[in-house]
């Protein structure tokens, strides 16, 4: 099966490979895996306090399509707000890379990784805020 030019481009010259400090309160880490093939993908986002994605790094052990999908999303999410980033779907990724049906799961993995990274950041932020008593918002009482 032939890879599309865009997949090859990202595979041969992946963008933003690397790691960010996962202990950094502004870094969200998304780690996802594909049990059908046993591959793993890690996406890390550095997010400002006002929810803008300032940096993105990935590390993927998998096929060319998985690497290309993760490389592409690091490019796409940089400069976006987390609200915009979560709207990226696997369809957008698969279409951009012209992934064949058997490789659609690679784009699903990349979408899941974005969501997992943002969720991790949000949970960290919530923990930070609940640790800081003055910042705790009182839950609204049910009518």
């Amino acid at each position, binding site marked *: 099966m032939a890879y599309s030019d865009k997949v090859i481009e990202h595979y041969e010259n992946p963008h933003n490979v690397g790691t960010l400090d996962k202990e950094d309160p502004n870094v969200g880490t998304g780690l996802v*895996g*594909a*049990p*059908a093939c*046993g591959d793993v993908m890690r996406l890390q986002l550095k997010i400002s306090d006002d929810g803008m994605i300032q940096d993105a790094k990935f590390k993927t*052990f998998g096929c060319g399509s998985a690497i290309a999908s993760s490389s592409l999303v690091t490019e796409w999410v940089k400069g976006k707000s987390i609200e915009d980033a979560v709207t990226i779907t696997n369809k957008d990724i698969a279409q951009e890379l012209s992934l064949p049906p058997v490789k659609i*799961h690679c784009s*699903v993995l990349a979408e899941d990784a974005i969501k997992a990274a943002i969720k991790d950041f949000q949970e960290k932020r919530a923990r930070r805020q609940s640790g800081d008593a003055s910042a705790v918002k009182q839950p609204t009482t049910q009518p």
Partner: protein
Amino acid sequence: MTHFDVFGLTPALELDVKALEQQLRALSLEFHPDRFAQADARTRLAALEKTTALNDAFKVLRDPVKRAFYVLKLKGVDLDSEASAAQVKMPLSFLEEVMERRERLEGLKHARDVEQARAMADEIEREKSAALERAKVALERDDVPEATHQLGRVRYLSRFIEEVEALEEEALS
């Protein structure tokens, strides 16, 4: 018709592979297309389909790992299909461990330290065997979530071992 049905067996995790091979030979002779050369088209097609089904079933049933994945599939979880496997979520701690090991292996690849990579693969091979045994126990008990979890582990651990084998091949050439 399941792969077990093809051989007239009830689904089982333990199989006598030698006996299965003998059965394959006997049945293959019985349904060999050459024996039906003079028969009508429908009979010939049926013989051909039976032969294909026998070979496909044997490939799965002879291998203890593939057999366990197949028994799980018969219980409704197909870890070989992307769509259904995507629903299976492994614990984060396990994925972290996989990631960390793959990174270590990557370092060993760069350093061309095949010996150390083999040592890692041997350790992982033991974990894989243990996970397969646990999966079999779970399948016997009809504990599908536990069997899915353990076979998920088997899948990731197998992938690691394949990587080491590829590295060894490369070192030889």
